[in-house]
Structures are given as C-alpha cells and as structure tokens.
C-alpha cells in the first residue's frame, strides 16, 4: 500500500548524518525517556547478585563485588526504542556477555541457542545466543560515567544496542540458556520475538 500524502504536513527532516543513523520510523531525541511496565525496583547492592544458569546444570552467581571485579568495557552506541525515539552515542560501562559466558563455561555451563534474561519485578526477555555474543551485548552498570540510575535500570541492565531497547532489560538479575526461543514479557504481549530496528521488527508478525 502506498502511503497517502498527509495534506499540509512538511515535517522536520533530520540532517543527512542523523538520517543515515535512524532506522525506519525512528526520530532522534536528546532526552533519555524512561519506560517500564511497573514500579521501579530499588535493590540494595548488598542484596544484589547476578546468576548465569542453564537447565540441568548448576548455576554461577556473582555478588556485586565479584561482578565489579570482572573486566569492564566502555561502550558507545546508538539506541533505538520501539516507541520511536533513538538516541545517538550513548556511553555505558559494563561487562561483556562474552566474559560472563566464558566464566560460566569454566564452571561447566554449556551455552544453548537462546537465552532469557530475568529481572527484578518479574520482567523477562528472550534473545538468540547469537545476538548476545561476539561483542554485541553487555550487563551495563554505568551510564555517562556514573552508576546506572534505578529509573534507567540500575544497578544493572542488559545492553543489546543493536536491537530495540526493550531487549535491553532493566534490573537484570539472571541470564538462562534455553534450547528454544520462548517469548518474554513484551514478546508475549504482541511485541516481536527478535526486534531488529533496521528491519522495523516492532510487533508480532512484522517481517
């Protein structure tokens, strides 16, 4: 279907540099809007832990101090929210999922083709392993050189900047390997299983 012209709509085009970085249907924002389905959890660091697990295998759990002792990276990426905003050059610090998976492998946890992230508040999201390995995903604990604010997912959130930002689950506490792709919270409520912004995979049934 060809879109009809919106009479009298001129719009505000992004400059050429921004246009090349904006996936279809997105616009650039300089704010950092907050999105979540419920109240913001506030987990004290003394009670925080992160667990990597798989079915039928013992899991590995890091305390906050142990997690902070893992090698951290600084990550600068554009992020794209399914609600249409994109924000360029966001700067994060965090631990690569590759690092976490390698640490798990030393304890006998074998990777599987999919992962599910589990968060405070019961939120989950599903991802193919290939989308979180090879330097594409992190557990972020810092934003703009500061500890990650609870509203934005602190103390720690998943960061998968090449997918729509709901996949970068806030308040992440666990990562589990799965043999099959099982829909998480938003994926069971009509959002796309993978969520590639460049393919505009917003909702269930999008290509």
């Amino acid at each position: 279907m060809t879109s009809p012209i919106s009479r009298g709509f001129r719009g505000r085009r992004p400059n050429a540099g921004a246009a090349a970085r904006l996936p279809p249907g997105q616009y650039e924002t300089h704010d950092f809007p907050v999105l979540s389905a419920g109240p913001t959890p506030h987990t004290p660091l003394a009670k925080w832990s992160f667990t990597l697990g798989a079915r039928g295998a013992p899991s590995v759990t890091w305390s906050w101090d142990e997690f902070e002792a893992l090698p951290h990276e600084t990550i600068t990426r554009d992020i794209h929210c399914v609600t249409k905003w994109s924000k360029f050059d966001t700067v994060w610090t965090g631990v690569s999922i590759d690092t976490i998976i390698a640490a798990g492998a030393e304890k006998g946890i074998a990777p599987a083709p999919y992962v599910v992230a589990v968060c405070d508040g019961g939120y989950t999201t599903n991802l193919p392993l290939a989308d979180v390995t090879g330097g594409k995903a992190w557990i972020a604990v810092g934003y703009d050189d500061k500890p990650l604010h609870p509203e934005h997912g602190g103390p720690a959130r998943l960061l998968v900047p090449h997918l729509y930002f709901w996949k970068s689950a806030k308040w992440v506490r666990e990562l589990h390997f799965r043999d099959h792709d099982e829909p998480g919270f938003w994926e069971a409520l009509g959002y796309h299983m993978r969520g590639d912004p460049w393919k505009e995979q917003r909702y269930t049934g999008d290509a």
Partner: protein
Amino acid sequence: MTGDVAEARPIAWRIGTVHEIIAETSRVRTLVLDVPGWPGHRAGQHVDVRLTAEDGYQTERSYSIASPPGDPRISLTIERLEDGEVSSYLVDELREGDTVELRGPIGGHFVWSVRDGGPLMLVGGGSGIVPLMAMLRHRASAPDGVRRATPARLLYSSRSWREVIYRDELAHLADTDDSLRVIHTLTREPPPSWPGYARRIDRAMLAEVTWPASAHPHIYVCGGTPLVETAAKALVELDYEPTSIRTERFGPTGGPA
C-alpha cells in the same frame, strides 16, 4: 509458541479519516476517526500514527486510544507538545475529512476490562488521562450491576482547571455513578475558592484517596515520568503489590513511553 508467532500476520497500516475534531483544551484536541477494517481494541491500548510529506518523508508516533472498545470510531486525544513535529500537525493543521495512517491496537499490558474486576484505581497526570479515560468509558458502558461490582476512582492531576481534559464528561460520569469517584488536583493555578487538592500527587494524597491495600485494587498510573515515578514508588511504600501497579509514561518527546 514459536510457530504461532511465525504465522502471525503483521498489524496492518490502515487509513483513518477525520470524522470530527473536538477541542478539549487550548493545547489538546480529540480526533474522531473512521477506520475501515479496525479489528477492535482493549481499553488502554495505543496506535502508531504515520505521516507522509509530499516528498515521501515519513515519521511515526504512538498515541493512546481514548474511545472504549466497541465504539464505531476511534478517538485519539492529542496534546500539542512544545516543538512537537507530529503533535503540532495533528492539533493545529489536521481538518475534518483529512486522512492519517495508523496501525494497531498495540500493547497488552496497560489494559483493563470489566472482566478483570475491581476495584479500579486510576492515577493520571495531564494527557496521561487518555488511556484511563478509555477504561472509564468502557466501564460506563457496562450493565449497572457489573459497574457497581467494579467501583472505580480516578485521581487526576492537571496544571489548572482550564487544562483539565474531559472535564465535563468526567463530572457527568461521576454525577451519574455512585461507584465512581473523580478527585482532581490542580498543581499551578487552582481557582480562588478551590476546595480540592492543589499540589502534585504525593504519598499522603494517594493514601487518602486509594482503597486500602487489603482491597487489592487494580492500579493504573499514566503521566509524565516524575508523576509516574512518584506515584508508583509511594504506592509500593503503602504496601500495594508491585505487580498490581501498571505504569505508562508519556515521555517529553511525545507518545506513550
């Protein structure tokens, strides 16, 4: 499950034609749209709207649906945002008979039906009223007995009395329904003899107007991020189950966030 998802059809873009425009406040108006083929929706869901300029440039935003399920037309209530590329067009330029592209309904979490039961506690600020209004209109269309069995309260924060969206309709709903209470708070310019709340929503206000936690109300909070953060945090401190509190935020960049 994976199979079902793979077979699902995309949510189609449809053409909506503006049937009527209702001025709600100086910055807010409602577009009443004819949308042939609309598949129906639940109260609280939203749509994506897409605009196309003559040279093919397109942009999209999300807007909550104000009309209840079952209405023959879809109503979107839009606030003109400062510097809003899409909202200023929809509020200032669009006329009756014009068309917009939209697709939906979208969102399956911030939704309520009378079948979900009550009590229903709605907390809104500014244009955050829109999805809550769809819930109240849906509830108002239910049979008397069902409505009485699902009592509802709305705590609604506006800057001033003239910026209260749906002011007359809210008054009418509350006047004709003993099981609905509408409580306004006016944060900037309360009228001289205003008897109600005249401050931002806070914990004390929520404690006064909300059913006790033991009544297990279904709670929906929609507004800007500061209002939503404050209200949701206060409600958790007041012992409401975090999972009973659903939030939706209208970011400063427009659209439900």
